């Protein structure tokens, strides 16, 4: 840039009065800033939707893999039956224990 241009450029321009900012902002309608939590937890609705769909998919897959309810019940029966027999076995020892010499 030439010397003449530099000389022109060095001239300071008038600035708006400082009071005008307040007057102008009074006439504006502003939106409230988003809360910190909202900004932190809801940056991307798409990400949250993808997460929800993934979770639902995992729940459905888990349900499909589990055995039916009857099979589940019958698998518990041997355990319960075994416990009952063991209890009877233990009880059968008590009379013997009661009659044992001291």
């Amino acid at each position, binding site marked *: 840039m030439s010397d*003449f241009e530099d000389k*022109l450029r060095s001239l300071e321009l008038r*600035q708006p*009065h400082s009071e005008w*900012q307040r007057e102008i*902002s009074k006439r504006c*309608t502003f*939106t*409230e*800033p988003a809360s910190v939590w909202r900004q932190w937890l809801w940056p991307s609705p798409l990400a949250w939707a993808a997460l929800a769909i993934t979770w639902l998919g995992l729940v459905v897959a888990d349900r499909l893999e589990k055995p039916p309810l009857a099979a589940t019940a019958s698998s518990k029966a041997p355990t319960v039956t075994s416990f009952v027999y063991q209890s009877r076995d233990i009880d059968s020892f008590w009379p013997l224990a009661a009659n044992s010499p001291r």
Partner: protein
Amino acid sequence: MLRSSEQVTRPEFDQLYSAYSGSVFGFALNLTRDREAAREILQEVFLRLARRPELGMPFEEAKSWLFRLTHNLVIDLHRRTASRTRTLERLAGEPVSPFAPHIEPDKQAFRDAVAEAMGTLPEEQRAVVHLKLWENLSFSEIGQALGLNPNTAASRYRYALDKLQQQLRYLYEEIR
């Protein structure tokens, strides 16, 4: 970054005003030479900006948008007042210089001379000179702001600068 679908918040408005109000006002004042008109244009620019921030625009691009809006508002103002020009010329006071006053008489004299010389330029040339010298825009950015081809902007700038040099040579060489 200016967001697209929401109004600005108060802190965002304050930030935008701090960044650009001087540029908008200076440009409007240089074109209108009327402090009150420049003030109204400044107000209108920022009212519109607060209502409808431009679409995801970085701050650097916002400047071109702001100058384009300011220029359009100046044109609208001139159209509205065109029919009253003669009356206005009789009643209006001295055109206001776009430059801040200086306490040294020699420098103030140079500022007054530059302001007067700028006032003799056609408005299109004055707009290009202002954006080139005091806002440091490229001719491409000036073209975007004023709706011109960059080559046209460059031509107008050269013509305007030659005129200013011719008018101010005597004074410029004295104070150089």
